[in-house]
């Protein structure tokens, strides 16, 4: 006897932030939903692990878009409303202070925008008025209008600012926290990122990303959503312009009226039964990272380090591009998860450093050389980092490092491209009637952005249609 395949209203590929956001919305409104994920841990790009007794986060340095409870028209409060999650559940604690470091200049920011405006005016007095005009333009711009075609943020900003160093310093954090394009980004994306980091701000739960994911998962289950981990999708059967069946790696076939994929655009296209190699066009991202986590025997504060996050470039022109070498040691992001405003210190003092990396170089390495190469490049990165922060190397008791091949393994992203395709698909539509995208390649980045992506795609393509 042959069993009828399980039939869902919506199947979601990927249990990351966007998939969970979409799943909560749909299940809350009575849809029969199943989220499928290849791995044993949920979270996608923002996951977590335990090693040698330490708890580590992947991805999350800080949540951007931090605003106080009850703030109107802010992405964070919008998504909490949509998911019926109380503000306190994410347990967010604000940053103390962050900065962007370039040769001879440091721009600091807090969660008060006036502080940053003042910082720009003091460091670049001749640009102060121009900067205020740019801010006015940014605040008035509707970045959520999906009908506006993409255009270069560099060109738009150049109409306001004339000091190239200020331009580089403004862009640096925005590139690192969410550009899939080398050395530029869409202006709409610039506006979203500018507001999320400079105007709103940074925060983190004491438990890190685990907290956020636990809240989302509990919510998803409480509204009746189904989650299947260790369940990879092998193929999407296409017939008559529609996805007719979702074939799992174990051979099981599921059916769904609609499929929402957070796997990425080229990654999703490759699952289609009628996929023609190369048909995904120029959608293979090139930007990947190495990240090191150094566990210390001392609180960074005891070493005199108070900042939460520092974005840096040791060259006046910041090169946000795939480096020729395995790692670009000239720039990076230094994150100290201990330096948020908590009631009590975190269990484990640590410093995280993220640097641009070349996927191909790491993928081509001999397995025997890989561990030594990680250690060698990590040492070179820290040689640069300690020019900017107190030298913490004597207090390192454990180090873990991930590379672009680790990203590839856990996210399935082509090239280990953290931010996915350089071409985004804002409407979430594909050439197939019932297949939609959410997450990274829909174009909203960061934890808050990814959650909003899932929410808005679920609203637009499933709930509003009904």
């Amino acid at each position, binding site marked *: 006897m042959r069993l009828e395949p399980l039939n869902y209203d919506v199947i979601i590929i990927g249990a990351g932030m966007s998939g969970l956001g979409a799943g909560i919305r749909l299940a809350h409104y009575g849809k029969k939903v199943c989220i499928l994920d290849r791995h044993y841990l949920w979270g996608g790009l923002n996951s977590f692990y335990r090693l040698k007794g330490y708890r580590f986060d992947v991805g999350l340095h800080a949540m951007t878009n931090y605003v106080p409870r009850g703030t109107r028209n802010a992405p964070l*409060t919008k998504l909490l*409303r949509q998911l019926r999650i109380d503000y306190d559940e994410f347990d967010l604690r604000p940053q103390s202070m962050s900065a962007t470091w370039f040769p001879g200049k440091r721009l600091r920011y807090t969660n008060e925008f006036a502080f940053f405006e003042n910082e720009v005016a003091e460091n670049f007095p001749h640009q102060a008025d121009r900067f205020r005009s740019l801010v006015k333009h940014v605040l008035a711009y509707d970045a959520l209008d999906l009908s506006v075609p993409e255009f270069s943020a560099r060109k738009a900003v150049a109409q306001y600012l004339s000091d190239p160093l200020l331009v580089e310093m403004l862009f640096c954090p925005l590139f690192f926290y969410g550009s899939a394009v080398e050395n530029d980004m869409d202006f709409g994306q610039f506006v979203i990122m500018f507001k999320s980091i400079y105007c709103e701000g940074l925060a983190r739960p004491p438990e890190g990303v685990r907290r956020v994911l636990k809240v989302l998962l509990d919510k998803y289950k409480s509204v009746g959503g189904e989650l299947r981990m260790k369940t990879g999708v092998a193929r999407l059967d296409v017939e008559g312009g529609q996805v007719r069946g979702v074939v799992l790696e174990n051979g099981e076939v599921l059916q769904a009226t609609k499929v929402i994929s957070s796997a990425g655009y080229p990654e999703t296209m490759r699952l289609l039964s009628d996929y023609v190699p190369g048909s995904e066009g120029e959608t293979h991202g090139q930007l990947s990272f190495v990240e090191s986590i150094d566990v210390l025997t001392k609180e960074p504060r005891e070493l005199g380090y108070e900042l939460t996050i520092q974005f840096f470039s040791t060259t006046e022109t910041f090169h946000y591009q795939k480096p020729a070498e395995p790692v670009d040691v000239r720039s990076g992001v230094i994150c100290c998860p201990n330096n948020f405003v908590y009631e009590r210190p975190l269990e484990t003092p640590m410093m995280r450093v993220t640097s641009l990396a070349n996927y191909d170089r790491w993928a081509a390495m001999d397995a025997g050389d890989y561990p030594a190469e990680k250690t060698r490049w990590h040492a070179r990165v820290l040689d640069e980092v300690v020019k900017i922060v107190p030298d913490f190397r004597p207090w390192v008791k454990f180090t873990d490092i991930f590379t672009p091949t680790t990203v590839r393994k856990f996210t399935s992203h082509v090239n280990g491209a953290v931010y996915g395709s350089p071409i985004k698909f804002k409407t979430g539509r594909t050439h197939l009637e019932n297949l939609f995208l959410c997450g990274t390649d829909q174009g909203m980045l960061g934890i808050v952005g990814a959650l909003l992506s899932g*929410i808005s795609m679920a609203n637009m393509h499933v709930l509003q249609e009904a």
Partner: protein
Amino acid sequence: MTREEIRKAIIDILADIAPDEDTSGLKDDVGLRDQLGLDSMDFLDIVMELRKRYNVEVPSPDYPQLATMTSCLNYLSPKMA
């Protein structure tokens, strides 16, 4: 449902959608959008909750009818009678 019951039903929905806003002193003839800081996603939720809780359908061309409490009541009374 009486007009007063429908009013309570709408307020319950609004309190669920926007728990950080004060729904106790709503003015009947001022836009809900401004009073509660609602956006189009929130209006979709009012419609979805009406469907989920009371089986009432609000087709999208009728969304403007939900602008104020008074217009909500006028529009929903015949549907929820």
